[in-house]
Every structure is written in structure tokens, then in C-alpha cells.
């Protein structure tokens, strides 16, 4: 009995220690974000003159309104829209294309099936940065600089997502496809009626990951958007830093940073339930 008590105590003190560790960890990660938020609610003088304030000031609405409507180079509102279009385009496009290619690779026997699969797989080893110069050349020749299609198309093919869907489709029992065939479903009908709903959680998980991937793109938008009205927000923040002797408008930059974080956070929270389910279980 006594021993049991001891164990319980040990466990609960262990629990407290873990909690403490985690709280410290969270505080550590969260502190810079908090500082950014504070900086976005005070005026320029308060930031430049040490010590740095630790509590929010009273310029919240003023700073955010200024960021959204005028910003530094371009209004943050426009950049948010651009980023949203790009991230959604990349996430949805990647999912649609990889679903279809995985479907083709798993369910159809066509000549060169394995070759195509390995070609797709090979491109996993070539991230955007490696092929950025030839890609730029192609996009420029197509006249797609400073356009949404130029932002989205080069990033839309996804070996990773194709690979994941292929793995998932291969775990779907063959009998399901056969039952659908006996029921009279043509291949695309089987895809839309059965495969797609069964991949729901996988799609949600991938959507979150790919949305954030698209949202955080930096190098590519920086290269192909010269027109400030096509800037995305992540590169826009960097553009706001002054060159030379200009003073940085820190409150607006910080407000922009905070604004840039909101959509990904909303996507994660909104999709949390499906996302977690998609990562840990597959429904069969």
C-alpha cells in the first residue's frame, strides 16, 4: 500500500515536471510572437527607445489599419489576398493532381506505369531551389511573370502527395474496386464515389500541410513578382525592411507579421480534427 502511494506520488511529481518543462518550452517559443504583437500595438518611438515595452500599447487599430490599407510598398490587404490565392491554388492544385496521378498509377495498367511512377518519385529529389533558374526561364517565356498562374503552376506538381495517395490507395482492398465494378461503377465514378470520400482525412491533412507550404513560399514569389501589387505577404515583410538609411516602420512591419500568421493558424485550427485523424488513422 505504502509502496503504491509512493508510486503515485512519484508519478504526479513527474507529471508536474513534464508540465513545467512544456510550459517553459511554450513560453520560450511564444515570447518572440508576443513581442511582435506588443510591437505592433505601440508607436515607433516606444520601440526604438529602450527598454522594449512588454505590454500592449494603445495604437492597435491605428497600426493595423495603416498596414492593411497602405503598408510600406503595397497594402497588406492586397498581399494577403495574393498569398491566399497562391496558397489555396497550390494546395488544391497539388491535391487534385496528385489524387488523379496516384489513381492512374494504382488502378490502371498502362505501358510505362512504373517508369512514370519512378519519374515522379525522382522529382522528390529536386526541390524548387534546385531548378529555379530553368523554371524562371520557362515562366518568363510564357509571359507569366507577375501573375497568379506564374506563382502557382511551377509549384503545383507534388511527388510527395502523389506518393502518399499511392500508398493509401494500395491499402484499399481490391475487392472494393471489384464490388464497385460489379455494381456498375465506371472508373471515374469509383474514384469520385468511393476513393475520394475514403481519402477525406488524408486530403484534409495534406491540405493543411500544403496550404502552409504555399503560404510560406518566399524565394519563388520574390523572383517572379516585381510589381508590388503581386507581392505575397511572406516576401512582402522582407521587402518592408528599409534599405540604406531609411528608418523601418516597425509597428507596421510587426502588424504585418502578425497578420501573416493568422490564416495558417485558422486553417490548422479549422482542420484540426480531420488533420489529426488523417495523420493517425485511416478509415477502412
Amino acid at each position, binding site marked *: 500500500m505504502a509502496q503504491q502511494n509512493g508510486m503515485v506520488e512519484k508519478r504526479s511529481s513527474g507529471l508536474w515536471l513534464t508540465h513545467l518543462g512544456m510550459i517553459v518550452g511554450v513560453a520560450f517559443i511564444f515570447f518572440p510572437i508576443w513581442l511582435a504583437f506588443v510591437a505592433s500595438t505601440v508607436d515607433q518611438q516606444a520601440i526604438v527607445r529602450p527598454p522594449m515595452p512588454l505590454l500592449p500599447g494603445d495604437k492597435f487599430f491605428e497600426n493595423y489599419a495603416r498596414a492593411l490599407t497602405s503598408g510600406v510598398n503595397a497594402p497588406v490587404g492586397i498581399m494577403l489576398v495574393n498569398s491566399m490565392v497562391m496558397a489555396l491554388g497550390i494546395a488544391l492544385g497539388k491535391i487534385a493532381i496528385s489524387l488523379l496521378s496516384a489513381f492512374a498509377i494504382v488502378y490502371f495498367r498502362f505501358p510505362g506505369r512504373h517508369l512514370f511512377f519512378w519519374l515522379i518519385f525522382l522529382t522528390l529529389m529536386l526541390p524548387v531551389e534546385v531548378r529555379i533558374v530553368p523554371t524562371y526561364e520557362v515562366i518568363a517565356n510564357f509571359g507569366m511573370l507577375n501573375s497568379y498562374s506564374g506563382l502557382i503552376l511551377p509549384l503545383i506538381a507534388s511527388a510527395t502527395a502523389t506518393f502518399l495517395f499511392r500508398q493509401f490507395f494500395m491499402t484499399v*482492398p481490391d*475487392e*472494393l474496386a*471489384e*464490388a*464497385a*465494378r*460489379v*455494381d*456498375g*461503377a465506371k472508373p471515374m*465514378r469509383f474514384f469520385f*464515389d*468511393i476513393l475520394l*470520400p*475514403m481519402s*477525406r482525412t488524408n486530403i484534409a491533412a495534406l491540405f493543411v500541410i500544403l496550404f502552409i507550404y504555399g503560404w510560406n513560399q518566399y524565394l519563388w514569389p520574390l523572383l517572379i513578382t516585381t510589381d508590388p501589387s503581386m507581392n505575397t505577404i511572406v516576401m512582402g515583410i522582407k521587402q518592408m525592411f528599409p534599405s540604406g538609411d531609411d528608418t523601418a516602420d516597425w509597428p507596421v512591419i510587426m502588424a504585418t507579421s502578425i497578420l501573416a500568421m493568422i490564416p495558417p493558424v485558422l486553417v490548422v485550427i479549422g482542420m484540426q480534427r480531420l488533420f489529426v485523424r488523417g495523420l493517425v488513422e485511416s*478509415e*477502412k
Partner: protein
Amino acid sequence: MATVTLENLRKSYGNTEVIHGVDIDIADGEFIVIVGPSGCGKSTLLRMVAGLETVTSGDILIGGRNVNSVEPMDRDIAMVFQNYALYPHMSVFDNMAYGLKIAKVPKDEIAKRVANAAEILQLVPYLTRKPRELSGGQRQRVAMGRAIVRKPAVFLFDEPLSNLDAKLRVQMRLEIKALQRDLGVTSLYVTHDQVEAMTLADRMIVMNGGVADQIGKPLEVYADPATEFVAGFIGSPSTNFLDAGRLGRRVEGGAKVGIRPEHIRTVAQSETDYAGKVVYSEPLGAETLIHLKLLDGEDVTVRQEGALPIPSEGESCGLAWEAKDEMVFAKDGIRLRQ
């Protein structure tokens, strides 16, 4: 409702032939069971009839129409799979209705047919559930329901009961039989369980290595097996095979004599030339199985009435049987008839 005819049906995967020519005429409303050991080609045969495997050579006729190159959905068949193959994200109702929806059957007709099938299969309380919220037996019923609602000409079953426990298997077996009788739909049913085959079949096909060794009514097959394989496979405990030469029969070398366990009796050793030592006996109540080892090392099983005295282990017994119960098989397994 329809007849099904297989004519010299063959199937090869690459260069290996796995079905070596099967012929059968199945009458309208007949229940045919395909039985055989694992890997003998039962599923392959059934899937060819379903249209899920291509035919290498030969013909399949359903209702007199050659369906060799007809898509499964246009063959007027319904299939029940071993693992049920229910659509996991659809409710029981939608699972059953899916085929009808694709066939563009009017909504109220679909509702009526599904309700009817659910009634027959006692699935009414579960219509809104997902398959994962059902027990194995209930899933099995849904798979049956999906086949019934389509009102097909032919039912195809591929080991539909093998994922159920023994008791449920017996119950579902009876239900399937009753259902098939009521609906009068021609059925092909694959199983490796000979009890299922014996109880369900109007006629059964005993498959052995891609060949239909024998086709016939269960009791006829049991009483009069055409090959050594059939004699050994159908019936439990299995037929005893004794070397024909050693029994003093005048036949070519390698021939065997088969005698069913219930046709052998134990007698006093002085009455007969054949004797063996009792290895062990299994009293099952109504009957007793006695396992013996003959002097030349062969194993023999005797099945006797439960009321008869049971010889003790290690005791020597004589064995006797009637000559008419002997089945003689040539070296290649074919039955030799006098």
C-alpha cells in the same frame, strides 16, 4: 433467373494454366457449390463467371448469351465477397442502394427494394449505420442485401462465411439456403468447407488442381466418388486408402482400395486377415472414431455406433468390411469399376 453454361473454360496467368477446362450446365435456379482445397482455382473460376477475370479460352453463357467479353455490370450477376467489400464511408442503406443508383433506378423503387431486402435480412434497425459499426454477421448480411436488391439472374458467393465464427456460420448457412430457395436465383457458391458444400449444394463441383474432378449431387458424390482425390476430400473423417496389392486384389501396381470409415467394423482377430493396434479412440457420443495402425504401418480410421464397446488403446483388433463397399482407384487416382 437464368441458366449458366461453362464450356471447356480455361484460364492461364502468363504461361501457367490454372484452370484446365471446366464444363458444366447449370439449370435455372440451381445451387451449385464449388469445393476444393486452397489454390485449386475455385475463386478464379467464379471470378471468370463474374467477369472480373478474363477468359483465356472456352465460353461462359448466362441465360444462353455468351458473356465472355461483357462487363460485370451487364452480366446480370451479383457477387458476395469473402471480406464483404462494403463501402466503408456509406451507410448500410447506401451500400445496398449504390448499384441501383448507378443503374438509374427511380428513387422510390430503390427505397422499396432496399426496405424489402432489409426486412428479409433483419437489417432494418441498422440502415443508417456505417459498416464499421456492425458485427461480422451483420456485415455479411449487408453484403447479401447488396446482392439481393439488384435482382440478378445469378448469385456468386466467394467463401462468404469464412470470416464468421463456427456457430454463426451454421446459422448463416441455413439462411443463405432458405433465401436462395425463396428467391429461386441460380447460384454459384465457392467454399473449401465440405460440410458447407454437402448441405448447401443441389450439385457440387469438386475441384482439384484446376480440374473439375467430379460434378454431381452431394450424396452421389459421397457414395460414388470418381477419383481418389474426391473420395479423400469429401467425407470426414476421410476415406481409408489401403494398398490393393497387399490386400491381394488382382490389379496393376500402385492401385489403392478406398473404404469409408463407417463401412469398416472391428471384429475378433481370428475372423480376419487384417488386424491393427488401436492408437486412440474418440468417443463423440453418437459415434466413436477408432484410429488404428495396421501391422504394415498403414493408418485406418473406423467409425462405429456410440453404443458399441470401445476397444482400449494398444489392443489388437481385426478389421472387416463388405466387398461391395470397396472403391478401387488406379495409380493415377481414377476410379476402376468392375
